[in-house]
Protein backbone atom coordinates (compact mmCIF):
# COMPACT_ATOMS: atom_id res chain seq x y z
CA UNK A 1 0.00 0.00 0.00
CA UNK A 2 2.87 2.34 0.76
CA UNK A 3 4.47 1.86 -2.62
CA UNK A 4 1.21 2.66 -4.31
CA UNK A 5 0.65 5.90 -2.45
CA UNK A 6 4.23 6.95 -3.19
CA UNK A 7 3.49 6.34 -6.86
CA UNK A 8 0.27 8.38 -6.61
CA UNK A 9 2.10 11.25 -4.98
CA UNK A 10 4.86 11.35 -7.58
CA UNK A 11 2.32 11.33 -10.41
CA UNK A 12 0.43 14.10 -8.62
CA UNK A 13 3.68 16.09 -8.32
CA UNK A 14 4.35 15.68 -12.05
CA UNK A 15 0.82 16.80 -12.88
CA UNK A 16 1.20 19.83 -10.63
CA UNK A 17 4.52 20.71 -12.23
CA UNK A 18 3.24 20.40 -15.80
CA UNK A 19 -0.15 22.07 -15.44
CA UNK A 20 0.76 24.58 -12.75
CA UNK A 21 4.43 25.23 -13.50
CA UNK A 22 4.08 28.05 -16.02
CA UNK A 23 1.55 29.74 -13.76
CA UNK A 24 3.76 29.57 -10.69
CA UNK A 25 6.36 31.25 -12.91
CA UNK A 26 3.85 34.08 -13.43
CA UNK A 27 3.30 34.38 -9.68
CA UNK A 28 7.06 34.50 -9.11
CA UNK A 29 7.54 37.07 -11.86
CA UNK A 30 4.77 39.26 -10.47
CA UNK A 31 6.40 39.75 -7.07
CA UNK A 32 9.97 40.27 -8.29
CA UNK A 33 11.04 43.44 -10.13
CA UNK A 34 12.69 42.85 -13.53
CA UNK A 35 16.07 44.03 -12.29
CA UNK A 36 16.25 41.13 -9.85
CA UNK A 37 14.41 38.66 -12.08
CA UNK A 38 16.98 38.92 -14.86
CA UNK A 39 20.01 39.09 -12.57
CA UNK A 40 21.45 35.63 -11.88
CA UNK A 41 23.37 36.84 -8.78
CA UNK A 42 20.43 38.21 -6.80
CA UNK A 43 17.52 36.01 -5.78
CA UNK A 44 14.12 36.72 -4.29
CA UNK A 45 15.37 35.50 -0.92
CA UNK A 46 17.71 38.51 -0.70
CA UNK A 47 15.11 41.20 -1.38
CA UNK A 48 11.75 39.74 -0.38
CA UNK A 49 8.51 39.94 -2.39
CA UNK A 50 7.52 43.24 -3.93
CA UNK A 51 3.83 44.01 -4.37
CA UNK A 52 4.15 47.47 -5.92
CA UNK A 53 2.97 46.39 -9.35
CA UNK A 54 -0.24 45.04 -7.80
CA UNK A 55 -0.72 48.39 -6.11
CA UNK A 56 -0.18 50.16 -9.44
CA UNK A 57 -2.84 48.13 -11.23
CA UNK A 58 -5.47 48.75 -8.58
CA UNK A 59 -4.67 52.33 -7.51
CA UNK A 60 -2.51 53.80 -10.28
CA UNK A 61 0.29 54.66 -7.87
CA UNK A 62 3.60 54.18 -9.70
CA UNK A 63 6.07 51.69 -8.22
CA UNK A 64 9.07 53.35 -6.59
CA UNK A 65 11.49 51.77 -9.06
CA UNK A 66 9.86 53.66 -11.93
CA UNK A 67 10.14 57.06 -10.25
CA UNK A 68 13.94 56.87 -10.03
CA UNK A 69 16.02 59.11 -12.25
CA UNK A 70 17.19 56.69 -14.92
CA UNK A 71 14.08 54.52 -14.90
CA UNK A 72 12.47 53.66 -18.21
CA UNK A 73 8.96 55.02 -17.78
CA UNK A 74 7.73 53.34 -20.95
CA UNK A 75 7.95 50.00 -19.23
CA UNK A 76 4.75 50.84 -17.41
CA UNK A 77 1.56 50.76 -19.46
CA UNK A 78 -1.96 52.05 -18.97
CA UNK A 79 -3.27 48.83 -20.47
CA UNK A 80 -2.34 47.08 -17.24
CA UNK A 81 -4.81 49.24 -15.37
CA UNK A 82 -7.63 47.94 -17.61
CA UNK A 83 -7.12 44.42 -16.29
CA UNK A 84 -9.62 44.51 -13.38
CA UNK A 85 -12.37 46.12 -15.49
CA UNK A 86 -11.85 43.76 -18.41
CA UNK A 87 -11.94 40.85 -16.00
CA UNK A 88 -15.40 41.90 -14.89
CA UNK A 89 -16.50 42.12 -18.56
CA UNK A 90 -15.06 38.69 -19.32
CA UNK A 91 -16.73 37.04 -16.36
CA UNK A 92 -20.11 38.57 -17.22
CA UNK A 93 -19.78 37.56 -20.88
CA UNK A 94 -18.63 34.03 -20.10
CA UNK A 95 -21.35 33.46 -17.46
CA UNK A 96 -24.01 34.72 -19.89
CA UNK A 97 -22.63 32.50 -22.67
CA UNK A 98 -22.63 29.54 -20.29
CA UNK A 99 -26.25 30.05 -19.18
CA UNK A 100 -27.43 30.65 -22.77
CA UNK A 101 -25.58 27.58 -23.99
CA UNK A 102 -27.33 25.38 -21.45
CA UNK A 103 -30.78 26.96 -21.80
CA UNK A 104 -30.72 26.93 -25.61
CA UNK A 105 -28.69 23.77 -26.10
CA UNK A 106 -30.14 21.31 -23.57
CA UNK A 107 -33.63 20.97 -25.16
CA UNK A 108 -32.10 20.40 -28.59
CA UNK A 109 -29.62 17.88 -27.18
CA UNK A 110 -32.51 16.05 -25.46
CA UNK A 111 -34.42 15.88 -28.75
CA UNK A 112 -31.40 14.51 -30.60
CA UNK A 113 -30.71 11.95 -27.87
CA UNK A 114 -34.23 10.60 -27.28
CA UNK A 115 -36.47 11.14 -30.30
CA UNK A 116 -36.60 10.61 -34.02
CA UNK A 117 -38.26 13.26 -36.12
CA UNK A 118 -38.26 14.52 -39.70
CA UNK A 119 -35.02 16.19 -40.81
CA UNK A 120 -33.20 14.96 -37.70
CA UNK A 121 -30.09 13.94 -39.58
CA UNK A 122 -30.08 17.15 -41.61
CA UNK A 123 -30.35 19.46 -38.60
CA UNK A 124 -27.76 17.44 -36.65
CA UNK A 125 -25.32 17.54 -39.56
CA UNK A 126 -25.87 21.29 -39.84
CA UNK A 127 -24.92 21.72 -36.18
CA UNK A 128 -21.89 19.45 -36.39
CA UNK A 129 -20.54 20.90 -39.62
CA UNK A 130 -21.03 24.58 -38.78
CA UNK A 131 -17.93 24.91 -36.55
CA UNK A 132 -15.71 23.49 -39.30
CA UNK A 133 -15.20 26.84 -41.02
CA UNK A 134 -12.22 28.48 -39.29
CA UNK A 135 -13.17 31.59 -37.34
CA UNK A 136 -10.58 33.75 -39.10
CA UNK A 137 -12.42 33.32 -42.40
CA UNK A 138 -15.72 34.43 -40.82
CA UNK A 139 -14.38 37.46 -39.02
CA UNK A 140 -15.38 40.03 -41.63
CA UNK A 141 -18.91 38.74 -42.42
CA UNK A 142 -19.76 38.16 -38.74
CA UNK A 143 -18.59 41.68 -37.94
CA UNK A 144 -20.86 42.97 -40.71
CA UNK A 145 -23.80 40.93 -39.35
CA UNK A 146 -23.29 42.29 -35.84
CA UNK A 147 -22.97 45.81 -37.18
CA UNK A 148 -26.30 45.39 -38.99
CA UNK A 149 -27.84 44.27 -35.69
CA UNK A 150 -26.28 47.27 -33.92
CA UNK A 151 -24.38 45.07 -31.48
CA UNK A 152 -20.80 46.19 -32.14
CA UNK A 153 -19.18 47.82 -29.13
CA UNK A 154 -21.39 46.21 -26.51
CA UNK A 155 -20.94 43.02 -24.55
CA UNK A 156 -24.19 41.68 -26.07
CA UNK A 157 -22.65 41.18 -29.49
CA UNK A 158 -19.76 39.26 -27.95
CA UNK A 159 -22.16 37.14 -25.86
CA UNK A 160 -24.22 36.31 -28.96
CA UNK A 161 -21.22 35.29 -31.08
CA UNK A 162 -19.60 33.26 -28.26
CA UNK A 163 -22.89 31.47 -27.56
CA UNK A 164 -23.50 30.68 -31.21
CA UNK A 165 -19.94 29.46 -31.81
CA UNK A 166 -20.04 27.16 -28.75
CA UNK A 167 -23.61 25.80 -29.11
CA UNK A 168 -22.77 23.02 -31.61
CA UNK A 169 -20.26 21.51 -29.15
CA UNK A 170 -22.65 21.95 -26.22
CA UNK A 171 -25.45 20.16 -28.05
CA UNK A 172 -23.12 17.34 -29.13
CA UNK A 173 -21.71 16.80 -25.62
CA UNK A 174 -25.08 17.09 -23.87
CA UNK A 175 -26.71 14.63 -26.26
CA UNK A 176 -23.96 12.12 -25.42
CA UNK A 177 -24.82 12.56 -21.74
CA UNK A 178 -28.60 12.41 -22.26
CA UNK A 179 -28.29 9.23 -24.28
CA UNK A 180 -26.53 7.57 -21.35
CA UNK A 181 -29.50 8.01 -19.01
CA UNK A 182 -31.41 4.74 -18.53
CA UNK A 183 -34.28 4.47 -21.02
CA UNK A 184 -36.57 2.71 -18.49
CA UNK A 185 -36.95 5.97 -16.56
CA UNK A 186 -38.41 7.68 -19.58
CA UNK A 187 -40.69 4.76 -20.33
CA UNK A 188 -41.97 4.91 -16.74
CA UNK A 189 -42.53 8.64 -17.11
CA UNK A 190 -44.47 8.01 -20.28
CA UNK A 191 -46.69 5.50 -18.51
CA UNK A 192 -47.30 8.14 -15.86
CA UNK A 193 -48.52 10.40 -18.67
CA UNK A 194 -45.58 12.80 -18.59
CA UNK A 195 -45.33 14.73 -21.84
CA UNK A 196 -41.92 15.21 -23.43
CA UNK A 197 -41.41 18.59 -21.79
CA UNK A 198 -42.12 17.18 -18.34
CA UNK A 199 -39.84 14.21 -18.82
CA UNK A 200 -37.13 16.61 -19.96
CA UNK A 201 -37.51 19.01 -17.05
CA UNK A 202 -38.37 16.53 -14.28
CA UNK A 203 -36.16 13.56 -15.23
CA UNK A 204 -33.45 14.31 -17.76
CA UNK A 205 -32.26 17.64 -16.36
CA UNK A 206 -32.03 16.66 -12.66
CA UNK A 207 -30.31 13.37 -13.49
CA UNK A 208 -27.82 14.90 -15.87
CA UNK A 209 -27.16 18.01 -13.76
CA UNK A 210 -23.48 17.20 -13.05
CA UNK A 211 -22.90 16.60 -16.75
CA UNK A 212 -24.77 19.79 -17.58
CA UNK A 213 -22.52 21.60 -15.09
CA UNK A 214 -19.40 20.22 -16.75
CA UNK A 215 -20.71 21.21 -20.18
CA UNK A 216 -21.55 24.69 -18.89
CA UNK A 217 -18.01 24.99 -17.60
CA UNK A 218 -16.76 24.06 -21.06
CA UNK A 219 -18.88 26.84 -22.61
CA UNK A 220 -17.70 29.28 -19.94
CA UNK A 221 -14.04 28.63 -20.64
CA UNK A 222 -14.39 28.70 -24.43
CA UNK A 223 -15.99 32.12 -24.15
CA UNK A 224 -13.51 33.36 -21.56
CA UNK A 225 -10.43 32.51 -23.61
CA UNK A 226 -11.81 33.55 -27.02
CA UNK A 227 -9.76 36.38 -28.47
CA UNK A 228 -10.51 37.27 -32.07
CA UNK A 229 -14.23 38.01 -31.98
CA UNK A 230 -13.85 39.75 -28.62
CA UNK A 231 -11.22 42.00 -30.20
CA UNK A 232 -13.19 43.12 -33.25
CA UNK A 233 -16.60 43.31 -31.52
CA UNK A 234 -15.55 45.10 -28.34
CA UNK A 235 -14.82 48.48 -29.89
CA UNK A 236 -14.05 50.92 -27.10
CA UNK A 237 -12.27 50.19 -23.88
CA UNK A 238 -15.27 49.62 -21.65
CA UNK A 239 -16.45 46.39 -23.26
CA UNK A 240 -12.97 44.86 -23.81
CA UNK A 241 -12.45 41.38 -22.45
CA UNK A 242 -9.49 40.19 -20.48
CA UNK A 243 -8.12 38.19 -23.42
CA UNK A 244 -8.00 41.37 -25.53
CA UNK A 245 -6.35 43.47 -22.81
CA UNK A 246 -3.85 40.76 -21.94
CA UNK A 247 -2.91 40.22 -25.58
CA UNK A 248 -2.31 43.96 -25.97
CA UNK A 249 -0.15 43.89 -22.85
CA UNK A 250 1.73 40.77 -23.97
CA UNK A 251 2.47 42.12 -27.46
CA UNK A 252 3.70 45.45 -26.10
CA UNK A 253 7.38 44.54 -25.84
CA UNK A 254 8.10 47.63 -23.74
CA UNK A 255 6.00 46.46 -20.80
CA UNK A 256 8.07 45.05 -17.97
CA UNK A 257 7.88 41.35 -17.16
CA UNK A 258 6.93 42.22 -13.64
CA UNK A 259 3.86 44.20 -14.66
CA UNK A 260 2.80 41.66 -17.31
CA UNK A 261 3.04 38.82 -14.81
CA UNK A 262 1.07 40.82 -12.26
CA UNK A 263 -1.64 41.30 -14.89
CA UNK A 264 -1.61 37.59 -15.67
CA UNK A 265 -1.91 36.66 -12.04
CA UNK A 266 -4.73 39.10 -11.31
CA UNK A 267 -6.54 37.73 -14.37
CA UNK A 268 -6.14 34.12 -13.25
CA UNK A 269 -7.40 34.22 -9.68
CA UNK A 270 -11.09 35.26 -9.94
CA UNK A 271 -11.59 32.99 -12.92
CA UNK A 272 -10.01 30.09 -11.15
CA UNK A 273 -12.39 30.70 -8.25
CA UNK A 274 -15.42 30.72 -10.58
CA UNK A 275 -14.25 27.53 -12.28
CA UNK A 276 -13.47 25.70 -9.04
CA UNK A 277 -16.79 26.75 -7.48
CA UNK A 278 -18.77 25.47 -10.47
CA UNK A 279 -16.69 22.31 -10.55
CA UNK A 280 -16.95 21.63 -6.83
CA UNK A 281 -20.57 22.46 -6.17
CA UNK A 282 -22.29 21.64 -9.40
CA UNK A 283 -20.30 18.77 -10.81
CA UNK A 284 -18.73 16.98 -7.85
CA UNK A 285 -21.19 18.05 -5.17
CA UNK A 286 -24.05 16.44 -7.04
CA UNK A 287 -22.07 13.32 -7.83
CA UNK A 288 -21.67 12.62 -4.13
CA UNK A 289 -25.43 12.67 -3.72
CA UNK A 290 -25.58 9.56 -5.88
CA UNK A 291 -28.12 10.98 -8.31
CA UNK A 292 -26.58 8.91 -11.07
CA UNK A 293 -28.06 5.69 -9.68
Amino acid at each position, binding site marked *: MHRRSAFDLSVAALVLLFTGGPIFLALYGSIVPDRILLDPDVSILDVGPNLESYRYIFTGELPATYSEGRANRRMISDAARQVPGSLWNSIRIALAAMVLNIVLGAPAAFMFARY*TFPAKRLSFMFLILSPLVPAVALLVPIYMTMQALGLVGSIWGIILVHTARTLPFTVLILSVFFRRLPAELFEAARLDRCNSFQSFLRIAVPLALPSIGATG*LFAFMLSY*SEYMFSLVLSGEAQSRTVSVVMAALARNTDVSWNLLNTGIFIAIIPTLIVVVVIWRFV*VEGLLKGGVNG
Partner: protein
Amino acid sequence: MWTLKRYPFVWLLPALLPVALVTLYPVGHALWTSLHSVMLLFPGEPFVGLENYTRVVTSNYFAVALRNSATFTALAAPAVVAIGVSLALFLRRRFFGRTMVRSIVLLPWVLPGAISAVLWTWVFHPSFGLLNWVLLEIGILDRSVSFLASPWLAFISVLVAHVWTQIPFAVVLTMASLAAIHPETMEAARLDSRSSWKRFRFVIFPEIKPMVVVLLIYNALMAFTSYDLVYAMTGGGPGTATTLLAFQIWRESFSMYDFGAGAAVAFIVVVISALLIIAITRALPSDLFGDR
Protein backbone atom coordinates in the same frame (compact mmCIF):
# COMPACT_ATOMS: atom_id res chain seq x y z
CA MET B 1 -36.21 6.16 -29.21
CA TRP B 2 -39.62 7.63 -29.88
CA THR B 3 -40.96 9.42 -32.88
CA LEU B 4 -42.04 12.96 -32.38
CA LYS B 5 -43.88 14.22 -35.43
CA ARG B 6 -45.26 17.43 -34.06
CA TYR B 7 -43.20 20.50 -33.22
CA PRO B 8 -39.68 19.06 -32.96
CA PHE B 9 -38.42 22.45 -34.12
CA VAL B 10 -39.83 24.21 -31.07
CA TRP B 11 -37.10 22.31 -29.20
CA LEU B 12 -34.43 22.76 -31.82
CA LEU B 13 -34.87 26.35 -32.98
CA PRO B 14 -33.40 27.99 -29.86
CA ALA B 15 -30.15 26.19 -30.66
CA LEU B 16 -30.36 26.29 -34.45
CA LEU B 17 -31.20 29.98 -34.86
CA PRO B 18 -28.11 31.55 -33.23
CA VAL B 19 -25.89 29.01 -34.99
CA ALA B 20 -27.56 29.84 -38.31
CA LEU B 21 -27.03 33.55 -37.65
CA VAL B 22 -23.25 33.16 -37.41
CA THR B 23 -23.06 30.44 -40.06
CA LEU B 24 -25.34 30.80 -43.08
CA TYR B 25 -24.61 34.33 -44.27
CA PRO B 26 -20.98 34.44 -43.02
CA VAL B 27 -20.09 31.11 -44.65
CA GLY B 28 -21.87 32.17 -47.86
CA HIS B 29 -19.95 35.43 -47.79
CA ALA B 30 -16.65 33.60 -47.26
CA LEU B 31 -17.46 31.21 -50.13
CA TRP B 32 -18.26 34.18 -52.37
CA THR B 33 -14.96 35.81 -51.35
CA SER B 34 -13.02 32.66 -52.18
CA LEU B 35 -14.36 32.78 -55.76
CA HIS B 36 -13.59 36.47 -56.32
CA SER B 37 -10.45 38.51 -56.33
CA VAL B 38 -10.88 40.52 -53.12
CA MET B 39 -7.75 42.54 -52.39
CA LEU B 40 -7.61 45.67 -50.33
CA LEU B 41 -5.10 47.31 -52.68
CA PHE B 42 -7.07 46.70 -55.86
CA PRO B 43 -10.62 48.11 -56.02
CA GLY B 44 -13.35 46.07 -57.70
CA GLU B 45 -14.03 42.43 -56.92
CA PRO B 46 -14.05 40.50 -60.23
CA PHE B 47 -15.20 36.87 -60.37
CA VAL B 48 -12.16 34.64 -60.85
CA GLY B 49 -13.63 31.16 -60.45
CA LEU B 50 -11.25 28.72 -58.83
CA GLU B 51 -8.16 30.83 -59.50
CA ASN B 52 -7.67 31.60 -55.80
CA TYR B 53 -7.69 27.89 -55.02
CA THR B 54 -5.21 26.95 -57.73
CA ARG B 55 -2.94 29.83 -56.71
CA VAL B 56 -3.01 28.73 -53.07
CA VAL B 57 -2.46 25.04 -53.81
CA THR B 58 0.46 25.73 -56.14
CA SER B 59 2.05 28.33 -53.83
CA ASN B 60 5.41 27.56 -52.28
CA TYR B 61 4.10 27.27 -48.71
CA PHE B 62 1.12 24.97 -49.30
CA ALA B 63 2.81 21.54 -49.19
CA VAL B 64 4.89 22.43 -46.13
CA ALA B 65 1.96 24.00 -44.26
CA LEU B 66 -0.28 21.02 -45.02
CA ARG B 67 2.37 18.56 -43.84
CA ASN B 68 3.00 20.59 -40.66
CA SER B 69 -0.73 20.81 -39.91
CA ALA B 70 -1.21 17.10 -40.51
CA THR B 71 1.71 16.19 -38.21
CA PHE B 72 0.53 18.68 -35.61
CA THR B 73 -3.02 17.28 -35.60
CA ALA B 74 -1.89 13.65 -35.67
CA LEU B 75 0.29 14.23 -32.61
CA ALA B 76 -1.76 16.78 -30.65
CA ALA B 77 -5.28 15.32 -30.76
CA PRO B 78 -4.42 11.77 -29.57
CA ALA B 79 -1.96 13.21 -27.02
CA VAL B 80 -4.58 15.50 -25.49
CA VAL B 81 -7.19 12.74 -25.32
CA ALA B 82 -4.76 10.12 -23.96
CA ILE B 83 -3.32 12.46 -21.30
CA GLY B 84 -6.77 13.82 -20.48
CA VAL B 85 -8.33 10.37 -20.00
CA SER B 86 -5.37 9.09 -17.94
CA LEU B 87 -5.46 12.19 -15.77
CA ALA B 88 -9.21 11.86 -15.26
CA LEU B 89 -8.76 8.22 -14.23
CA PHE B 90 -5.89 9.17 -11.94
CA LEU B 91 -7.86 11.96 -10.26
CA ARG B 92 -10.54 9.47 -9.20
CA ARG B 93 -8.05 7.77 -6.89
CA ARG B 94 -7.68 8.88 -3.33
CA PHE B 95 -4.35 10.41 -2.43
CA PHE B 96 -3.01 13.22 -0.29
CA GLY B 97 -3.72 16.63 -1.83
CA ARG B 98 -6.22 15.34 -4.36
CA THR B 99 -8.52 18.33 -3.97
CA MET B 100 -5.70 20.74 -4.72
CA VAL B 101 -4.46 18.77 -7.72
CA ARG B 102 -8.01 18.67 -9.10
CA SER B 103 -8.19 22.46 -9.03
CA ILE B 104 -4.67 23.06 -10.34
CA VAL B 105 -5.37 20.80 -13.33
CA LEU B 106 -7.98 23.34 -14.46
CA LEU B 107 -5.44 26.19 -14.43
CA PRO B 108 -4.32 26.12 -18.09
CA TRP B 109 -7.97 26.57 -18.95
CA VAL B 110 -8.38 29.96 -17.36
CA LEU B 111 -5.72 31.54 -19.55
CA PRO B 112 -6.45 33.28 -22.84
CA GLY B 113 -4.28 31.97 -25.71
CA ALA B 114 -2.07 35.06 -25.82
CA ILE B 115 -1.14 34.55 -22.16
CA SER B 116 -0.40 30.83 -22.56
CA ALA B 117 1.89 31.79 -25.41
CA VAL B 118 3.72 34.33 -23.21
CA LEU B 119 4.14 31.85 -20.36
CA TRP B 120 5.49 29.14 -22.65
CA THR B 121 7.78 31.53 -24.45
CA TRP B 122 9.19 32.18 -21.01
CA VAL B 123 9.59 28.48 -20.25
CA PHE B 124 11.48 27.97 -23.52
CA HIS B 125 13.44 31.24 -23.39
CA PRO B 126 17.12 30.71 -24.33
CA SER B 127 18.65 32.86 -21.58
CA PHE B 128 16.03 33.22 -18.82
CA GLY B 129 13.90 30.14 -19.58
CA LEU B 130 12.88 27.73 -16.86
CA LEU B 131 13.48 24.64 -18.99
CA ASN B 132 17.04 25.63 -19.85
CA TRP B 133 17.73 26.41 -16.21
CA VAL B 134 16.39 23.04 -15.03
CA LEU B 135 18.21 21.05 -17.73
CA LEU B 136 21.47 22.91 -16.97
CA GLU B 137 21.11 22.34 -13.22
CA ILE B 138 20.48 18.61 -13.62
CA GLY B 139 23.39 18.43 -16.05
CA ILE B 140 21.56 17.13 -19.12
CA LEU B 141 22.68 20.19 -21.08
CA ASP B 142 26.04 21.89 -20.85
CA ARG B 143 24.90 25.13 -22.50
CA SER B 144 21.50 26.68 -23.07
CA VAL B 145 19.45 25.77 -26.12
CA SER B 146 17.19 28.22 -27.94
CA PHE B 147 14.18 25.99 -28.26
CA LEU B 148 12.21 28.31 -30.50
CA ALA B 149 15.09 28.87 -32.95
CA SER B 150 15.72 25.29 -34.04
CA PRO B 151 13.13 24.00 -36.53
CA TRP B 152 12.00 20.76 -34.96
CA LEU B 153 12.45 21.91 -31.35
CA ALA B 154 10.24 24.90 -32.15
CA PHE B 155 7.61 22.55 -33.57
CA ILE B 156 7.74 20.37 -30.43
CA SER B 157 7.60 23.44 -28.18
CA VAL B 158 4.47 24.79 -29.86
CA LEU B 159 2.98 21.29 -29.73
CA VAL B 160 3.65 20.99 -25.97
CA ALA B 161 2.12 24.41 -25.35
CA HIS B 162 -0.94 23.52 -27.42
CA VAL B 163 -1.47 20.20 -25.63
CA TRP B 164 -1.09 22.00 -22.32
CA THR B 165 -3.88 24.46 -23.16
CA GLN B 166 -6.30 21.72 -24.26
CA ILE B 167 -5.86 19.13 -21.48
CA PRO B 168 -8.39 20.58 -18.97
CA PHE B 169 -11.25 20.27 -21.51
CA ALA B 170 -10.49 16.58 -21.90
CA VAL B 171 -10.10 16.04 -18.14
CA VAL B 172 -13.38 17.74 -17.21
CA LEU B 173 -15.48 15.98 -19.84
CA THR B 174 -13.90 12.59 -19.20
CA MET B 175 -14.41 12.93 -15.44
CA ALA B 176 -18.04 13.86 -16.01
CA SER B 177 -18.62 10.81 -18.21
CA LEU B 178 -16.72 8.53 -15.79
CA ALA B 179 -18.98 9.77 -13.04
CA ALA B 180 -22.04 8.93 -15.12
CA ILE B 181 -21.08 5.24 -15.19
CA HIS B 182 -23.45 3.20 -13.07
CA PRO B 183 -21.77 2.38 -9.71
CA GLU B 184 -22.94 -1.25 -9.96
CA THR B 185 -21.14 -1.62 -13.29
CA MET B 186 -17.91 -0.50 -11.64
CA GLU B 187 -18.50 -2.80 -8.66
CA ALA B 188 -19.12 -5.80 -10.92
CA ALA B 189 -15.97 -5.01 -12.87
CA ARG B 190 -13.95 -4.86 -9.66
CA LEU B 191 -15.19 -8.32 -8.70
CA ASP B 192 -14.66 -9.81 -12.14
CA SER B 193 -11.16 -8.70 -12.90
CA ARG B 194 -8.11 -7.87 -10.84
CA SER B 195 -6.19 -6.34 -13.72
CA SER B 196 -6.89 -2.62 -13.84
CA TRP B 197 -5.88 -2.50 -17.53
CA LYS B 198 -8.48 -5.14 -18.39
CA ARG B 199 -11.08 -3.29 -16.33
CA PHE B 200 -10.33 -0.15 -18.29
CA ARG B 201 -10.24 -1.89 -21.67
CA PHE B 202 -13.43 -3.95 -21.32
CA VAL B 203 -15.62 -2.02 -18.87
CA ILE B 204 -14.65 1.62 -18.51
CA PHE B 205 -13.57 2.40 -22.05
CA PRO B 206 -16.78 1.16 -23.74
CA GLU B 207 -18.75 3.32 -21.30
CA ILE B 208 -16.83 6.51 -22.04
CA LYS B 209 -16.22 5.79 -25.73
CA PRO B 210 -18.80 8.25 -27.13
CA MET B 211 -17.18 11.02 -25.09
CA VAL B 212 -13.70 9.96 -26.24
CA VAL B 213 -14.90 10.20 -29.85
CA VAL B 214 -16.34 13.66 -29.22
CA LEU B 215 -13.08 14.73 -27.59
CA LEU B 216 -11.02 13.37 -30.49
CA ILE B 217 -13.17 15.21 -33.03
CA TYR B 218 -13.06 18.42 -31.01
CA ASN B 219 -9.30 18.22 -30.52
CA ALA B 220 -8.58 17.29 -34.13
CA LEU B 221 -10.58 20.37 -35.14
CA MET B 222 -8.79 22.55 -32.59
CA ALA B 223 -5.33 21.33 -33.63
CA PHE B 224 -6.13 21.70 -37.31
CA THR B 225 -7.69 25.17 -37.11
CA SER B 226 -5.99 26.99 -34.23
CA TYR B 227 -3.08 29.22 -34.94
CA ASP B 228 -2.87 31.69 -32.05
CA LEU B 229 -0.01 29.93 -30.24
CA VAL B 230 2.01 29.77 -33.45
CA TYR B 231 1.28 33.41 -34.12
CA ALA B 232 2.45 34.51 -30.67
CA MET B 233 5.28 32.04 -30.05
CA THR B 234 7.10 31.66 -33.38
CA GLY B 235 5.23 33.61 -36.08
CA GLY B 236 5.41 30.46 -38.24
CA GLY B 237 9.19 30.23 -38.08
CA PRO B 238 12.02 29.51 -37.91
CA GLY B 239 11.80 29.30 -41.69
CA THR B 240 8.59 27.40 -42.29
CA ALA B 241 9.01 24.91 -39.42
CA THR B 242 5.86 25.91 -37.54
CA THR B 243 3.80 27.29 -40.44
CA LEU B 244 0.35 25.69 -40.09
CA LEU B 245 -2.36 25.80 -42.74
CA ALA B 246 -4.77 27.69 -40.47
CA PHE B 247 -2.07 30.29 -39.81
CA GLN B 248 -1.94 30.90 -43.58
CA ILE B 249 -5.63 31.96 -43.58
CA TRP B 250 -4.70 34.74 -41.23
CA ARG B 251 -1.51 35.59 -43.10
CA GLU B 252 -3.18 35.76 -46.53
CA SER B 253 -6.16 37.78 -45.26
CA PHE B 254 -4.76 40.15 -42.68
CA SER B 255 -1.08 40.33 -43.54
CA MET B 256 -1.17 40.23 -47.36
CA TYR B 257 -4.75 41.65 -47.52
CA ASP B 258 -5.61 39.01 -50.13
CA PHE B 259 -9.00 38.00 -48.72
CA GLY B 260 -9.84 35.79 -51.71
CA ALA B 261 -6.78 33.60 -51.15
CA GLY B 262 -7.40 33.56 -47.36
CA ALA B 263 -10.97 32.34 -47.87
CA ALA B 264 -9.71 29.72 -50.35
CA VAL B 265 -7.29 28.33 -47.73
CA ALA B 266 -10.18 28.35 -45.24
CA PHE B 267 -12.34 26.16 -47.46
CA ILE B 268 -9.47 23.77 -48.11
CA VAL B 269 -9.22 23.51 -44.30
CA VAL B 270 -13.00 22.91 -44.12
CA VAL B 271 -12.82 20.01 -46.59
CA ILE B 272 -9.89 18.39 -44.77
CA SER B 273 -11.59 18.84 -41.35
CA ALA B 274 -14.76 17.24 -42.67
CA LEU B 275 -12.71 14.28 -43.93
CA LEU B 276 -11.01 14.09 -40.51
CA ILE B 277 -14.37 13.93 -38.71
CA ILE B 278 -15.63 11.22 -41.06
CA ALA B 279 -12.40 9.25 -40.58
CA ILE B 280 -12.63 9.46 -36.78
CA THR B 281 -16.29 8.41 -36.64
CA ARG B 282 -15.60 5.52 -39.05
CA ALA B 283 -12.54 4.34 -37.10
CA LEU B 284 -14.34 4.47 -33.73
CA PRO B 285 -17.99 3.69 -34.42
CA SER B 286 -20.34 4.75 -31.63
CA ASP B 287 -23.96 5.83 -31.64
CA LEU B 288 -22.91 9.46 -31.70
CA PHE B 289 -25.34 10.50 -34.37
CA GLY B 290 -28.27 8.69 -32.81
CA ASP B 291 -28.85 6.35 -35.70
CA ARG B 292 -29.66 3.41 -33.50
